[in-house]
């Protein structure tokens, strides 16, 4: 496997990992909203909270993580800019 292929396969790995987290927090957990609503924290039923804030926080954090992780992959393979 040459460097280009290795770089792309690691990039793809990261892409799938990101999409799985996205699927879980965009859809998966909201499917169980009724069960999650049984748990109430500080007045927020958990199912409602996840759709109103929890998933959003996960999305923001995962994008910062993604940016730094992909950058590390690029540098590691000598594919980064500069």
């Amino acid at each position, binding site marked *: 496997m040459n460097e280009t292929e290795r770089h792309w396969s690691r990039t793809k790995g990261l892409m799938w990992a990101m999409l799985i987290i996205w699927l879980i927090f965009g859809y998966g957990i909201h499917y169980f909203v009724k069960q999650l609503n049984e748990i109430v924290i*500080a*007045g927020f039923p958990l199912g*409602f909270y996840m759709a109103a804030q929890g*998933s959003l926080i996960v*999305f*923001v954090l995962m994008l910062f993580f993604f940016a730094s992780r992909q*950058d590390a992959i*690029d540098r590691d393979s000598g594919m*980064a800019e500069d």
Partner: protein
Amino acid sequence: MATESKASGDFVSNLGKIYGYYTGGFFLFVVLLAILEQMGVPNKIIGYLFVFLTLAVYAFIGIITRTMQVGEYYVAGRRVPAFYNGMATGADWMSGASFVGMAGTLYALGYDGLAFVLGWTGGYVLVAVLIAPYLRKFGAYTVPDFLSERFGGNFARFIGVVVLICCSFTYVTAQIYATGIIASRFLGIDFQVAVFVGLIGILICSMLGGMKAVTWTQVAQYIVLIVAYLIPVVVLSTQKYGLPIPQLTYGQALQDITAREGQMIATGLADAKSLKPHLTPFLNYDPLNYFGLILCLMVGTASLPHILMRYFTTPSVREARKSVAWSLFFIFLLYFTAPAYAAFAKLEVYNNVIGQTLASLPQWVYTYGNIGLVKICGVDATTVDAIRDACAKLVGYTGDMASFVHQLRHQDFAINNDVVVISTPEIAGMPYVISGLVAAGGLAAALSTADGLLLAIANALSHDIYYKMIDRNAPTGRRLVIARVLLILVALAAAMTARTKPADILSMVAWAFSLAAAGLFPALVLGVWWKRANSAGAVLGMIAGFGVCLYYLVGTRYFAPHFYETWSFLSHASADAAAKYQELKAAYASAADEAAKTAAWAALDKHAQSIATWWGVKNISAALFGLPVGFAVMWIVSLLTPAPSQELQDMIDNIRRPRGDMVLAEKT
């Protein structure tokens, strides 16, 4: 030329200082207006000062960032740092409707409204992971640029332009409409005039400096809009719960709402059928439509050209990725606050409006009743007498009017979605200056989105259609003149459309997401991630996906009876609903004269719209069909036709690695 680029280099290296001073200056300005208000300056003047001074600042930025360089006009010279591009994208993304209407949607739909919150944020994950960094490396000026280079020429480009215009034009019309509404509501200017005031504001920001000017005004507009959105609800939260973090304190409000809902039903103030508990999921959308809507909004976000082109402006691929993360952070600040607005407003209505006698309603009910935004017992809440008559009629009271006492019931009260945000300062008893601030924020949100959309449309016409398809040898000067002329023409067309207050256009905005998703997403994603995708596959996939989506949208909305009859075997209509359809159809057939026929047709059409579906999918989620069709057609056709040339496959390798030059470099 050299001094010009040095000057803008200085500008970019001093961004922190410049926008720091700007933000401080803005706070000072608000404080100054508050002092003026205390000194007795009338509200109307305060409102004017707010709107015109913020407009003047945007115009100033628009003028000092004017440019005659193609690269600066189309992609801001690719010098916008991630953080600031994130702010600009936030303003570009959050429309007048997000600012004013989002909280109202959550008020009305409760949990189900969160589909919009999730859909309009989660899409950025797709932007960052699948699309934006690769388009940045490619080095396009517009999204159709990429389609053309990747998928064999101008036919793919042309289809891209068609999809782009279809999804952006209705959207920009709605933004100009929103600026007109905000200006007329807060300043008391006539709506028709207000539209053109908004239009001038939009054009000054974008015309002279293109993307460069729009970028730096959008950053300024983001600061205004986020400050304006947060301040009222932070003050309200501090007043009620002693903690200035509304995003945490509204949990208590949610509990109070639930308790009050039970109480209202128990005391007969609400009937269990019409009251939809705020926290209970799937009362307005069934799970299929809830998750379908989230998917369409997310994928649509990742396909809308006015958003994607913002990431063409960053200095590097690395910055483009970081910039998506910052964008989502800045958008998140508004979207995770909107549910707090909704909860506080609902609690206010449930506690201080429902169950009150007509004589003791709070003043804000009449303030907004007078401009037609609050209805009680079916009429605008203009005066106590007007609603007393209406309520007496409603409950069948015939005795002496003076002794009529009516406790307002849940079903008697109707509130326009926009009121939730704009009434909060008043409900919390804040001075008028805060209302002026909210107006300036709403205006900033509408103007910034309108600028981004207009630029996307005008650039597609000037760069893709004129320069790339009509005159490949056009000199730089002429290209930039044409770009500006087209910008003005598109803006005028949108303003003329907005002036007619087209109800249909406004509801069509939601269609933009499905159309963009079905028309562009498969080609953009597979273009990067699947080397085997070729031009025949992409072109047919785009046409098929977009076509199916458009057919479903138009068919279910404008030709509902026909659509229902063609596809009745796929409809989710219950036996009762199907029987009712036949009944209405018979009534239409046997209607005696023209008037009766028109009325019967309207009834038939209205009923048909509720059952003209495939498997019960609402038309706002039409991409649920267009998207898989687009992917499938692109995949199958690509496999049946020859693979792309080695040269093209090398180009794909090139856009997949950040190192090296852009693929498309402007030859000057």
